[in-house]
């Protein structure tokens, strides 16, 4: 049954690709797969070079200035145009945090980057009891059906 579903999906996808590929695709230039210039490791501000609207992401470059506001709302922008993220970040960048299972928290992997906004600094195993009670929805996004290797020690 599952295999039949997957084949149906694949067939539909290929049909859609052929259908869309003919002439229905917008002629607006896509986001380049890789930013043409090397970027500094600090927080990005597209406004240093760009003033207009990104043709690929269809939003003003100003929206993507990596302020604290953007960082905390990044999922909204990524969900409407993940390609723009991948233009500057490596495709695996998202999976620093968004993974099926990982044993090292991002702040351990990047202990040399205190400037980065990273989840769960300190001995968060202790603090998660409080944050989890108050706002479990914020935990659910990443730990609801994956990324729970460390949870397994206590939650069974």
């Amino acid at each position, binding site marked *: 049954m*599952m295999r039949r579903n997957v084949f149906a999906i694949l067939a539909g996808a290929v049909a859609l690709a052929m259908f*869309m590929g003919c002439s229905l695709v917008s002629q607006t230039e896509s986001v380049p797969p890789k930013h043409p210039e090397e970027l*500094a490791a600090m927080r990005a501000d597209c406004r240093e070079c760009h003033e207009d609207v990104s043709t690929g992401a269809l939003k003003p470059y100003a929206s993507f200035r990596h302020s604290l506001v953007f960082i905390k709302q990044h999922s909204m922008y990524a969900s*409407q145009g993940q390609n723009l993220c991948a233009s500057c970040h490596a495709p*695996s960048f998202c999976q620093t945090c968004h993974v099926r299972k990982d044993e090292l928290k991002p702040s*351990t992997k990047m202990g040399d980057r205190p400037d980065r906004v990273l989840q769960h600094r300190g*001995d968060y195993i202790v603090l998660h009891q409080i944050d989890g009670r108050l706002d479990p929805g914020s935990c659910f996004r990443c730990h609801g*059906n994956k*990324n729970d290797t460390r949870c397994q020690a206590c939650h069974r």
Partner: protein
Amino acid sequence: MRDARLGVDPRLSMGLCCAALLLLLPALLPAPCQAADITLSSRTYLLYYEREVTGGADKNFAPLYEYLSADARNLGDKPLSFHFYGWGRLDLSDDTDDDGHSGELGSAYFQYLHPTGNAEMRLGRFFFTEGTAAEIMDGIFLKARTPVGFGLSVFGGVPVERTITSTDTGDSIYGGRLFFARPGFAELGVTYLMEKGDFRGDDREMVGGDLWVRPGTGVEISGRASYNVSTSALAQQRYVLRLTPFSRLDLAVGYEEYKYKDLFQTALHPAFLSPSVDPNDEAQIVFAIVDIEVASGLTLEGGVKNIRHDASDPGDATRVEAGLRYAYNDGKDLGGLSAAIVSADRAENEYQEYRVFATCSPGPWRFSLDALTQRYKEQISGIKDAYQVVGSAGWQVLPYLKLSGDVTYTRSPRFTEDYAGLVRASLDLGITTGGK
């Protein structure tokens, strides 16, 4: 039994094979299409720490981790690429688990990026976000936009999940998003997602809406809402008004609401299920975030988050936080300090958090210090505060190779006094082969 350690997870083996194939790809392709831009990134971490195990004995752990990512772009001078990401662990001292090793294939997929219309195709294992869907999947993803602004994406395959409940992970996942976008003004989308599986007795079937509107310069309204078809209820909604009236000011205010039984219906983690949580509870959250560049390099950040529950058990709470960041040394270094205070109906949910950090990069060296403390209103395991200090030193040995090490000191309700060490090797290689 030691031989078992030599066994490698099949998924990891597949991943390593993919990486090897990726690197050999330019050589395997016919001569006219040997072009490829290959980047290889390796992060190796060796941790060392001591833990008291059941029975009171001390054990020393030294897990060695390798995180490998590789990207081959512009394959055959076409907008075709292959991306790989995976990690593996080998315990060099006492075993951190029963096997003494672990690993995961994070992603391995081909991607075609059409030069126009942001049309794309992905095939393999990948993480994607599309409207209200954010999944890791073994399958296919297609997306394109038409000249009139309407667009469509479809995806399907097998979900890549984990479960620590008795519920199995999903068997198959598929869906799509219909959207309309007008550049610089608005994007609206409707997402459908179906995951076949035994989630609380039902499949996971969600319909979501996403919205981004820019009614004027410096004003953005965005929102997302998910309707759970299986429970016939709105599971979650979140709306944000973002204002950037001046180039140095970024302000967002928002509202979020979710219902436990509808949002957590598909959870594979017991912490989100009864009896850990009250399934009839609902949370309403009002929040604000601000980022102001008060002077060149000096940024003031702040936020407020008020959480209200329908059920009296967890109680309501408000988190207020503020911080300063200062960039110096041509932006290569940063220093910062921050404070957060959580006040709540119940004393057990109240705490304060203070943090200070700084980096220093003289020549090829980089040093950093990060100190964090938390003060709990009520004792946790008889302790009312926690401290963690991380000191790091790194050396850029070569343009593509950096070595660094961290020492972490922790005192918390879990640790009377804990020291942990980490050695890190970061390798970043970029190669261009063939081409015109």
